[in-house]
């Protein structure tokens, strides 16, 4: 995920401090990894350097000085381009799963591959059940539901692959043990 662009997006409806941005980020993307304060400030620094945001005043109300930031025209343009750009259709997460199975088969350990696949399938199923719970909670907001849907669809794809691979590896196992 592109944190700079998400922060630009969060500034569209008006200037915000780093603290407000962190809170808005975690609220709008509740299933994403929370963003660290340090990352927010470092990212804002780079956005200022690149001319995409500018400082928009100081706020002394609550404790120390806090600088708020606002979007520039360049920033709006960069945000629009980022939203329009189609991402490479590449499953990022599954590549780790794939690598483990391929490596287990490379070292000739069919049993370890099967045990890993079954354990991973169980972990995926548990997570799928949790996200289904999030989605069906009567208090779930629209962003909760669509974030859960996103996770569910990806887990579903992984689960199909895990099950098919289990079947294929079971065939291989049968072949090896009956030879």
């Amino acid at each position, binding site marked *: 995920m592109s944190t700079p662009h998400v922060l630009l997006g969060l500034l569209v409806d008006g200037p915000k401090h780093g603290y407000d941005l962190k809170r808005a980020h975690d609220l709008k993307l509740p299933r994403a990894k929370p963003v660290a304060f340090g990352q927010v400030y470092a990212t804002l620094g780079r956005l200022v350097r690149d001319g995409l945001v500018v400082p928009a005043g100081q706020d002394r109300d609550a404790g120390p000085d806090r600088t708020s930031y606002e979007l520039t025209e360049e920033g709006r343009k960069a945000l629009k381009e980022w939203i329009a750009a189609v991402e490479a259709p590449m499953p990022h997460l599954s590549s780790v799963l794939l690598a483990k199975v391929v490596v287990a088969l490379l070292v000739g350990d069919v049993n370890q591959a099967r045990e890993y696949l*079954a354990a991973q399938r169980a972990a995926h*199923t548990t997570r*799928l059940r949790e996200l289904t719970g999030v*989605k069906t909670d009567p208090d779930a907001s629209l962003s909760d539901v669509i974030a859960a849907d996103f996770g*569910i669809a990806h887990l579903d794809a992984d*689960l*199909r692959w895990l*099950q098919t691979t289990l079947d294929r590896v*079971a065939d291989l196992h*049968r072949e090896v043990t009956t030879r």
Partner: protein
Amino acid sequence: MSYLSARGLVRSYGRTPALRGVNLDVEEGEIVAVTGPSGCGKSTLLHCLAGILRPDAGEVTYRGRRIDTLSEGARAALRRTEFGVLFQFGQLVAELTAAENVALPLLLAGTGRREARTAALSWLDRLGVADFADQRPGEMSGGQQQRCAVARALVTEPRVLFCDEPTGALDSLAGEQVLGHLVRLAREQRTTVVLVTHDVQVAAYGDREIMLRDGAADPTGLGTVAAQQ
């Protein structure tokens, strides 16, 4: 002893074995998903548990009582009073309105016409399809029809609801609405649910999953002994 259990269930169709010794336990109020690939025996298992089919061998017990040895009439009575069954589609009577369809099981059980209609309207309302009470199935979408079917399965307030791919014929949003209602109402009523599905997203509505593989339970997910030999 579990609320509903199966021990060593065996069932064949001619010379083709569908169940090869299934053991299963379901507790009261649980929502259990039975999953597995096509032909693994999950529908046959559901039919045996619901008393629709008789196993060739093994036992089915419900609340401490064997039900596989009951007569056809006694099993039919059980299905009318204690069990509800929900299939993929095609369960509503085309000539009857939604309210008449939902009232049907109550009328068959001897409930008065007015009381049955009141109950039917209340269940249609709980499933968000009260506006269709006087429409016939042909005038409703697949999702609306299936919500009526859920209302009809629950109108007798069964203790156990058996569902076989209940959203298999619906698109994902309509399916989600049907499942959302079904699971919410089952939890409110403390209805035990056995949900057969090949779809992992549907299975995730359950409290836990029982995987079937080649006619037997597969607790490790590694494939059964039969599959490994």
